[in-house]
């Protein structure tokens, strides 16, 4: 898992804190998309439980706009932030699953990516089939590089991670994920190994993630740390301790080992390592 874009607010009035009702009001108006963009982010970040948050975010998910470079706003920025926020509001945002499924077919791949992650956060079993369909053509088609950008044809990393998060170890799902273990990009291999480890618990996928902790690129080691944490793979403890990367990320990974994992090494050893890294 790569560090996700934080989608930080483009305009937050110099960091002035806003209230929940202000965020709701800013999302409801539609004259100023940059205010909606910030409001959507705010509601997710603050895990808002306001009764209007989910309905308004669902509306925002349908909002389509072109890029506005002048305001520093990307294409469909409001809809993307709405999708991310709905994921953060799981499980309260279950009603939004049909809207997110519809967005999986959007022509904007950034929006498909945000929707896939949100569906993973929501553990949406109904998303298994459409996500598998997007990945079914395999690493050479869905996973092919675009001629005009560093992105892949489909947002494979987010789609693979969503399958792991949803957590249904159906043979058809495993068959779709496994070919991505041989993808040319190490970040995609990491995402596939993470999903397979979450779904099957087989040590070979954990071993593959541990081997990525020795990759020469820091970005790959960071991704492997996050993926080991998400899967809670405790045998990785010593490799996590030793890999050259920021302690902050190691601590997040170890938290995952404590909370998501089981077996040896036991919690005492995990906590002792965390204490050292503070």
């Amino acid at each position: 898992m790569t560090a996700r874009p934080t989608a930080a607010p483009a305009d937050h009035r110099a960091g002035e804190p806003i209230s929940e009702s202000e965020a709701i009001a800013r999302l409801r108006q539609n004259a100023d998309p940059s205010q909606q963009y910030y409001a959507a982010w705010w509601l997710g970040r603050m895990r808002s439980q306001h009764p209007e948050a989910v309905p308004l975010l669902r509306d925002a998910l349908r909002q389509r706009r072109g890029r506005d470079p002048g305001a520093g706003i990307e294409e469909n920025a409001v809809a993307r932030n709405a999708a991310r926020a709905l994921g953060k509001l799981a499980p309260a945002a279950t009603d939004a699953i049909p809207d997110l499924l519809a967005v999986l077919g959007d022509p904007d791949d950034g929006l498909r990516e945000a929707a896939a992650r949100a569906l993973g956060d929501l553990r949406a079993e109904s998303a298994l089939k459409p996500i598998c369909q997007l990945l079914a053509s395999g690493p050479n088609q869905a996973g092919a590089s675009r001629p005009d950008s560093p992105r892949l044809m489909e947002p494979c990393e987010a789609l693979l991670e969503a399958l792991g998060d949803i957590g249904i170890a159906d043979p058809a799902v495993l068959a779709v994920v496994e070919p991505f273990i041989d993808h040319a990009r190490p970040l995609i291999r990491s995402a596939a190994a993470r999903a397979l480890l979450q779904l099957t618990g087989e040590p070979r996928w954990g071993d593959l993630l541990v081997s990525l902790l020795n990759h020469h690129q820091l970005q790959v080691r960071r991704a492997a740390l996050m993926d080991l944490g998400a899967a809670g793979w405790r045998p990785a403890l010593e490799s996590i301790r030793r890999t050259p990367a920021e302690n902050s990320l190691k601590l997040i990974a170890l938290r995952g080992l404590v909370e998501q994992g089981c077996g040896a090494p036991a919690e005492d050893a995990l906590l002792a390592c965390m204490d050292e890294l503070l």
Partner: protein
Amino acid sequence: MPSPVPLKALIDQLRQASSSEALVLATRALASSGDPGAAPVLVEVLGYNNPGAAVAAVDGLVALGAEAVDPLLRLDPDNYGARAWAVRALAGIGDVRGLELLIDALGSDVAASVRRAAAKGLGNLRLDPLEPPIRLAVQQRCLNALLAAGSDGEWVVRYAVAVALESLARQLEPASVAWQRLEECLVALCEAADDNPPVVQLRARVALDRLDAQ
């Protein structure tokens, strides 16, 4: 063991480093010299915006211990990047002269990684050499700063607070009011809540259990 390479040669090598990798290697070499004269140069490296070199410099400064404290405290307070690394070094050294900087960092630094290091440092100050009344006053200030940080918005800072409270408790009089306030904070950190993840609850529980068994 004193380095076979003279200090001046190590410093020259560092100043002439022409790439990021060369700077990291030169910093490591200087850091492992164990020479107190290296401290001001290692402190300078904290401001170079090179994380690999800064990590090596922090290791060297922590190894130098008390000898590194003065140069660390003389650091330009406006150099934010360098100050964040200095907090880590002072937290590792545990010298009471770092008290003000650690309290300030825990209460107001924008980076959770700096606040967590400061919290750990406040639990690790070596207070044995102090006169008892001064020791008590310092413990009180550490405790107040840690209790306030018990409601920090970032889990990793609260985790560090639990760790620091456990080590601070070992220095306190068990029947004291201070101990009671400390225990209350750990009990609160044990509680399940939406924004208090299981790992923080577990760490606080472990701290309470170990203190009970003491």
